[in-house]
């Protein structure tokens, strides 16, 4: 009975498999319109992207405002491959993801030595520099007029199941990253990078690995998005609000939790749809307000609320809740501000 590693919880695995199975038959059972099915496809895609962002921002505590760079690069590389070589789209996605991961490593390896706000500021620079270069690199991106992809009939509805598979893989990856022995190392780095190094962890190596995985996944999401939209342009793919959207999804859902960003992505996509339709001038401002409200009142977002409700109804023991919250908190000290007092002067 050693089929599974010891850190895999059977109920969690069963829940994921069941959810994916239900998801797979849902469009037929409910008889969704094309429009609804596309909305759900896009939502699943951003669930995957938000979870992959969370590996950096939540698990490692390295909040990136530059993930649009990988999203856009994955998108344009795969678009170019599809236009030039007529590859199967999923091969183009993987190549797009690999290029995005390589690019992430190029800027991440030096900047990941920075911690906290300094890293975040560096990623803003990376994101904006990438956007500018890509806007003027017309041979790759088509400049501000963008790229149109070859249209494959029937692809768009088929993409729903691809999105479901992608999301399933990313959820499993999120779980594995947190629960495996690697996850303990990541949490240790988030809490105290020097103390982690002093017990034998190599923070540089671990952070590079996580950024590679995160960059690859977000690159694949960008490539998927290109196939889904059929038309992409640099201002949208590499835009700063693209990067911000990943941060927002994670924050709304619960940064640092395993599954929170997934709920955040769902809320975010629905909210954006409504706001862009109803208040196109205001929607960025409303995001800002939402961000402030969440951080002020429930730093762990929707997951924080779930924890609270579960404890209220006796489903979660207080000490278990405390442990869950400590793991999710960005920066180990935030979990317990009093714990560092004392000690030798």
């Amino acid at each position: 009975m050693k089929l599974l590693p010891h850190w895999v919880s059977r109920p969690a695995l069963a829940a994921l498999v069941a959810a994916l199975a239900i998801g797979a038959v849902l469009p037929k059972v409910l008889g969704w319109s094309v429009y609804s099915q596309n909305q759900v496809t896009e939502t699943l895609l951003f669930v995957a992207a938000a979870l992959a962002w969370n590996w950096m921002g939540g698990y490692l505590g390295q909040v990136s405002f530059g993930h649009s760079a990988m999203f856009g690069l994955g998108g344009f590389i795969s678009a170019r491959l599809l236009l030039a070589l007529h590859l199967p789209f999923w091969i183009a996605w993987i190549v797009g993801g690999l290029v995005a991961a390589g690019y992430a490593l190029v800027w991440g390896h030096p900047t990941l030595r920075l911690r906290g706000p300094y890293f975040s500021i560096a990623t803003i620079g990376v994101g904006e520099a990438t956007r500018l270069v890509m806007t003027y690199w017309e041979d790759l991106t088509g400049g501000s007029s963008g790229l149109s992809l070859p249209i494959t009939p029937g692809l768009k509805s088929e993409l729903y199941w691809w999105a479901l598979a992608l999301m399933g893989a990313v959820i499993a990856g999120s779980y594995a990253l947190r629960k495996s022995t690697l996850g303990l190392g990541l949490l240790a780095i988030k809490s105290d990078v020097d103390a982690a190094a002093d017990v034998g962890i190599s923070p540089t190596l671990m952070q590079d690995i996580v950024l590679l995985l995160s960059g690859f996944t977000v690159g694949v999401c960008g490539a998927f998005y290109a196939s889904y939209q059929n038309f992409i342009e640099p201002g949208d793919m590499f835009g700063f609000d693209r990067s911000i959207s990943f941060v927002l999804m994670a924050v709304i859902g619960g940064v640092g939790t395993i599954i929170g960003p997934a709920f955040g992505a769902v809320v975010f996509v629905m909210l954006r749809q409504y706001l862009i339709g109803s208040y196109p001038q205001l929607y960025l401002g409303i995001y800002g307000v939402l961000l402030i409200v969440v951080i002020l009142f429930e730093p762990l977002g929707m997951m924080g609320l779930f924890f609270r409700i579960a404890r209220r109804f006796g489903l979660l023991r207080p000490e278990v809740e405390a442990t869950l919250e400590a793991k999710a908190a960005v920066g180990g000290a935030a979990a317990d501000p009093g714990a560092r007092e004392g000690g030798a002067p």
Partner: protein
Amino acid sequence: MTVILRAEGVSKRFGGLKAVDSVDLELNDGEILGVIGPNGAGKTTLFSMIAGSIPPTSGRVLLEGKVISGGSPRRAVRAGVVRTHQIVRPFQNLTVLENVMVGAIYGKARPLGARERALEVLDFCSLRDRAPQLPGGLTLAGRKRLELARALATEPRVLLLDEVIAGVNPVEALQMTDLIRSVREKRRLSIILIEHVMPAVMRLSDRVIVLDAGKKIAEGKPQQVVKDPRVIAAYLGESAAAAAPAQPGSGSFPTPASGSGPASHPTPPSNPTPTSTSPSKKGPGERP
């Protein structure tokens, strides 16, 4: 006795300041070596170089003939040298057990059986019943034991303990002393110990070295070293060295609880014979 760890002419310069100046050190297998000296003497910097977290400006550190300094802490930990921190640094977001598991997993890159090994170490450090808690719920003494447990879980040969006793109450200090002794006896480790609590240093150490302003100024048996005029001068100033050779060990040493070192420690003001056997000692106020 065989030498397990050797530091050869280790120096560290921070800009114009020589924090550690050409220090030689030998640690025998199974020995407890005390490192004492006033605040700012370079003790912790010396530790950081031995543990690989900062590279020496010159000199090197060898564990059984293999160079461990100048690389990364990971190299030192893999070789078998691990340190604890003076100000405890538990991973606040991990439970006590998980804290120790991090050491067990990453110390020698051996994830298998990490949980069992961590539990054994927690047992050894009397923390087993705290395993599922967050470290924030422990007392300072508990967190110091956790710091020690996490280091032990990396399965080191040499343990560098940076003030694991200072700051806890006398009963806890005695428990910690016993724990350190049993680390040596039951786990067969060699230990270097930085400590300001003199009674503990005197009881624990086989040998003591004294640092002052980055230089090693004395070395030997604890009882001899504290009578050394140069050592007394380093702690209390020159005049005290001549006046009170019997004081060390009886509570007159500066402890963290009494302020921040020699500068705030009252030097006997009226000393009839301000002579000194030590030619080039600074007064207490001149130290950085």
